[in-house]
């Protein structure tokens, strides 16, 4: 792996606070880390540790107060709003905890909203099969279970074959079995398409399936571990 690939995502001295004066709250207190290309990186931390804020900043939908972020050598801070949109459009996929599907589009159409953004999207039908949604492709989101909806959300993010897939607590609203299915899917996607995956979660067990684990607490990195003994999602227990 080249140095560039090893430092595919580089974060230096990242700080972020909310509010001002007495109510000022430092959420991120100077983070430094790198994520390699194609790596499955899990960010762990309890509520309020700043992990979602970090993810939003990495996704270009929130901004840092100071510090630098480089993605594939491009400095995020140099990008204006237009370039940031372009950056998200070309390089990022988003998976939200609450799926955020478009309620009056069916499964396939929801995935098409992602595909439309790419010049070379994945084959939707094949993806639907991988997602296990092919049979449900004409259904509306409200006709699906939570797990199925999250699959659609992953499909929508992955269909444009982004360089980085940002997952914000993707299993946060799901039960154990469904969560495991979703994690298996993300793992499969990572293997098949080779995207860099950054997943935010408070579920300690998930770290086992990651290549790289960053533990956050109180806006600081407490541990930054490369997991050499990762296990398959199917074998996770919690």
């Amino acid at each position, binding site marked *: 792996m080249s140095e560039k690939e090893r430092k595919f995502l580089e974060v230096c001295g990242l700080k972020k606070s909310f509010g001002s004066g007495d109510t000022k709250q430092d959420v991120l207190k100077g983070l430094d880390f790198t994520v390699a290309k194609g790596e499955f990186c899990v960010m762990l931390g309890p509520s309020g540790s700043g992990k979602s804020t970090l993810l939003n900043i990495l996704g270009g*939908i929130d901004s840092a107060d100071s510090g630098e972020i480089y993605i594939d050598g491009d400095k995020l801070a140099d990008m204006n709003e237009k370039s940031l949109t*372009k*950056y998200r459009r070309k390089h990022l996929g988003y998976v939200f905890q609450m799926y955020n599907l478009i309620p009056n589009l069916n499964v396939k159409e929801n995935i098409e*909203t992602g595909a439309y953004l790419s010049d*070379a*999207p994945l*084959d939707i039908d094949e993806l639907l099969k991988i997602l296990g949604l092919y049979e449900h492709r004409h259904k509306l989101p409200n006709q699906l279970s939570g797990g199925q909806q999250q699959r659609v959300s992953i499909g929508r993010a992955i269909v444009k074959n982004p360089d980085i897939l940002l997952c914000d607590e993707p299993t946060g609203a799901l039960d154990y079995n469904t969560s495991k299915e979703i994690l298996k899917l993300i793992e499969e996607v990572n293997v098949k398409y*080779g995207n860099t995956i950054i997943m935010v979660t408070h579920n300690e067990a998930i770290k086992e399936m990651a290549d790289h684990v960053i533990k956050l607490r109180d806006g600081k990195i407490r541990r930054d571990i490369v997991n050499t003994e990762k296990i398959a999602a199917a074998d996770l227990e919690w």
Partner: protein
Amino acid sequence: MAKESISYGKRPKNPMIKRVWKDIWRDRRRYFLIFTMFVLTIGFISGMFVSNNSMMTSLESCAERFKREDGHFRLSEPADKETIAAIESGEMADVAEIFRERAYEEAEDEVIEAVDDAMAEEIDKQVRAAITEQVTAAVDKQFEAAAEMGQKFTGEQKDAALEEALDKAISENFDEAYDEALKQAKDSDEYADALDEAFDKAHEEIDKEIDDKFAELSDRYGLDEEIDAVPVTVYELFYKDVKEGLAVDEDPGIGIRVYPERKDVDLFDILDGKAPENENEIMIDRMHADNVGIKVGDTITVAEEEFEVCGLAAFVDYSTLYENNTDTMFDAMTFNVAMTTDEGFERIRGNTRANYAFTYNDRPDDEYEEKSLSDDFMKALITQVAVSENEDIELEDYVPAYANQAINFANNDLGKDMSMGGIMLYILTAVLAFIFAVTISTTLEKESSVIGTLRASGYTKGELLRYYMSAPLMIAVFAALVGNILGYTFFKNVVVGMYYNSYSLPTYKTLWTPYAFVRTTIIPIILMLIINLVVITRTLRLSPLRFLRHDLKGSKRKKAVRLPRWRFFPRFRIRVFLQNIPNYLMLFVGITFVMLLLSMAVGMRETLDYHQAHMSESMFAKEQLILSRTEDDDGNTITTSAKNAERISVASLERKDETYNEEISVYGVEDDSLYIRLDADFTEKAAEDEVYISQAYADKYNVKAGDTIVLSEKYEHKDYTWKVYDIYDYSAGLAVFMTNDRFNEVFDNDKDDFSGYISNEPITDIDDEYIAAEITEDDILKVARQLDHSMGAYMVYFQYVCVIVAALILYLLTKIIIEKNERAISMTKVLGYNDTEIASLYLVPTAIFVFFTEFIAIYLGFILMKVFWKSMMLGMGGWFEFTMPVSGFVKEFLLVFIAYLLITVIDFFRIRKIPKVLALKNIE
């Protein structure tokens, strides 16, 4: 990695395009409301504009199509060919000269006869004397000779002998001597001198008499000015004014003016049936027929002769059924115009009125030229009639087309409807703009997480902007299409129906009306686009994160307001209220619009009724008489013995403006008038150019004391500039007041000139022939009745639209409030509150809010309506203030509150329908 095994597909078409349709379906109720409002606005207003334009254009084109007259005149009896030819020449006859020649001619014979008679008598006397002298001398000689011879005669014998000799001499010599003497006398210079002297004396008398008479005529009609000849073509347009009886109930109260067949001028448009073909058929005015219920095939009596109605028509010179041009208002119920064949005309017993229509051989280019031609032609007409060989013929009536109410009234009145439509359009467009703004901001709020997700995924603002613009634009374009179709069909027919109900109009062709399309369609669509563009663009400036967090309000999170320790439910309601303040503000604006619309719907009717009820109160005096001339045939000033009658002078000027030329009455008032009470010291204090203006004038054009006003002659390029001395409290009309003396100076009249009399007592002692117009209380009420007639139908039309739109606004807004609280309502359901409790928590605050808002909104709506009303009145003649009695406000209040209560019932069902799971869904 395994990227080689990835199969790629094609980039799909934008899936959001499909979603546009789905969005429209999802929000079908809201879009239906917008669609309905758009369709109503476009359909209703373009219906008005299109019918108005089509009808006006048709009326204008009729003048040529149906060879409308340029004027008509009526003579006391039919004129001979020579007189008609002289009138057609358009040249002014030299009345004085012709009269003089005729008088001289008449005088010549008389003078000669008189001189001859005198001379014959003289010669007779002289010849007799000469003969007597000669005979007496001869007889005396004979007696002297006889005496010398000794014969003796008695005196008696002598006398007898002389008498015998004289008789003999006269019988033998007189004639010859007389003729000889007469011949000598006529050849003499003395005779010629005598004759000349007699002629001179006669001419002198004639000249004096003619000059006096002509001076008076010339003064009255300005005959001393030279005119250019106005050649015209004159057509016989005789008629008989008789009584019409309906076969069903022999009502003799209807006057019918029957013309024989019209062939060359003032033709007609047959709307039903056919023109009369035999002496028993008659074609009558369509509107009169509609008003009294006559149909083709019915039989009516005309001067007691029966006729079958074969056709209903609109006569080009009677688009409004004015019986006389001096009538203050027309009446299609009691007056009818008809045409028969020439034979049918003969059947009718009645005086034939020698009426003639004329057309100018050289058409005038504009109304100024028409007025000037008409003035010149009148001089030609008066003089030619005066010099007609038939000395009994008189000119009874002269009405140029531009001053003919029967021709112009409908046209002028149709113009007024445009300004009414215009104001309605302003209000509806404002309402639409409000609805667009509310709808799009609600949509964006609802779509917050979708927008956040799409933006986070990389959708650009432009893509989202185009997407969120699509549905409203599609609805607007579709509604515009439907609205225009309805405007050109259904709504147009409704309005045209109203026109036909008021006026005797010809058939029309529906015309494409570009300004209607621009104002009713293009402008609202552009407005909608701009509002959507601004709201969406502003909202999309927010970061995707804000959308994902449903944090679209610009302000930072507020701290909870501390509430007093009330019971839980009132506190909950206050919380609901505080949380929904922006929504309630929106509701407030909405209700204000509703009140504005209702003000229009309720207030216009009320204003008209009020105006009608108070019109007679605002007359200067119970009777106002305008004279056609102020001196009678003997040259004496026409006076009246009516108690407290005052002289008044009246002139009509125009306040010229780009949009509308307003007719302003200028009054000259007696000093210390009982009826128009100007300041006692006005005469002394006021400068020469200072005048009073009426309250109505001041209100309509925002004129204050000290301001300058400029009025112009209607058909001449002459302006009058005056300074406003003060406002006179008179609201019935737009008027300027000054003293009679000033009036006469301003208008170059003689010092003692005046126009008529005003009095509270009936003026009965002035001969009808001198009265040009008489305005009584009933006439004023007639104006109001007519206004009611022509505007009343619109009121109903407006009321329907206003009430429908008002209900739509209320429904839309309360729906939005419920929708915005759906999640909270769902949560209270989850917590175990029942539907009634929830309704009381969420509906009561809104009900209380609506109740109190109504008071403010009613006031605001009224104020706004006053502003709109004013702008409407600026586009038409006259002025009356927008008024609303308390009952009108109560009506408005109740209408809205009852509508709101009905909507609350719908809202209650909406609340019942909100699922509990909603609370658990999509919350981050």
